[in-house]
């Protein structure tokens, strides 16, 4: 387990994802600070690159994913705390012409 402190950012306390500001190796414990809230200790499950997101709490398939306190999409499968959240498990809801019945 790494002792190094990794910088992360969470925009709003209702968000279920945070952004890492450094490349984080797997099995690292990161601290997510949100003003006025108790810091969250999250164990990162997999390699997460600079600027990418990870779940700060478990997210169920179909749940809305929140960043900036707003909806950025929904989970296409269950996501565990500390898991990378990106196009493989998050899909946008808007502009989805592919979902319109032909």
């Amino acid at each position: 387990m790494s002792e190094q402190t990794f910088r992360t950012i969470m925009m709003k306390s209702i968000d279920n994802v945070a952004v890492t500001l450094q490349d984080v190796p797997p099995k690292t414990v990161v601290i997510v600070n949100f003003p006025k809230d108790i810091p969250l200790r999250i164990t990162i499950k997999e390699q997460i690159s600079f600027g990418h997101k990870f779940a700060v709490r478990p997210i169920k398939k179909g749940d809305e994913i929140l960043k900036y306190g707003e909806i950025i999409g929904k989970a296409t499968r269950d996501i565990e705390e500390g898991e990378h959240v990106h196009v493989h498990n998050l899909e946008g809801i808007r502009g989805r012409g592919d979902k319109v019945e032909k």
Partner: protein
Amino acid sequence: MTKLKNNEGEFLGYRRPDGKVGVRNHVLILPTITCATQTAQRITELVQGTVTFIHQHGCAQVGVDYEQTFRTYVGLGKNPNVFGVIVLGLGCEAHQARSVAAEIAKCGKPVQSISIQDHGGTLSTIAEGAKAAAKLVQEASTQMKEWCNFSELIIGTECGGSDACSGLSANPAVGSVSDMIVELGGTSILAETTELIGAEHLLAKRAANDQVAKRVYEVIHAMENRSIQMGVDIRTGNPSPGNIAGGLSSLEEKSLGAANKSGKSILNELINYAEEPKEKGLVWMDTPGHDIEQLTGMVAGGAQVVLFTTGRGTPTGSPIAPVIKISTNTSMFEKMGDNMDLNAGTIIEGKETVEEVGKRILREIGLVSSGKLTKAEILKQHDFGIWRIGPTF
């Protein structure tokens, strides 16, 4: 050496006959038709102080699409950064050089139209155009600059090649400058309707009145419907592969970061592509997310300076308006120093606050407006693209 003076809230600009102020003194060779772009290029090669652009428009366009292209040409000619214009046509095209010239002339600046067919071919047109341009350039060079107020500026804001830092560093910093410009009585243009899909409710809440709020939803739905009618996931084009590599997962996520460029000001007006704002303060121009089409639309709307944030890095520039490139992260700023003017990555590193970077950008606007060249200008990055809204016939 004595350096360019930076007076708080002021810059040295060129007063135009209609009272507006330019931050550059270009002579624009404006080809209204793709067939005249090569001739226009030759003229700019011969005469220093002239600018032009390459494009593929000006013929076989009808209806609203014709009008939008026409409005763009006229707006670029009227942009206060332009001292005078030579409108170059072929002769038989839909977008007639003389009609474009007549519209531009209404703002009082020197305008002349030349057509290749009337002047007996390419070489005679180059000679005629170069002679006219040389005269205009010399006239322009005698104009004294004067101290002008930031309230006379229209600042275009734009993000391109975004990454996950865009919404955390450079976009909020541009948002804070946008608020400062509005506070100083100037105008700030927010654009890229596509990249506001998912953030429209936040902007509608800040609308000056119900009519503006209604227009916010109208332009968003119109843009979203275009992808729905095509039966495609908008993510196949936006966010782009580079955005996704940078950590952005959906259009909504990109939009929420992009909306930060508008700061916290009240949204006073929603204008059409390439339309001049009637209101001061924060204005939204309906444009696509395409960097160059958006840039061209804002400059045609009268923007004298453009702020462009980027995470992946881009060389984008305009033939008419200086574009100040702001990096969202320090590693790209260092890697693409040729193209970057300012770095907002210091926010990510905790070295500067959003407001501190905002103030740094504001000072740069003052210097650039007084004549400091941006990287894109030095590299002659003269990008141009019109948002076409109809097929070619």
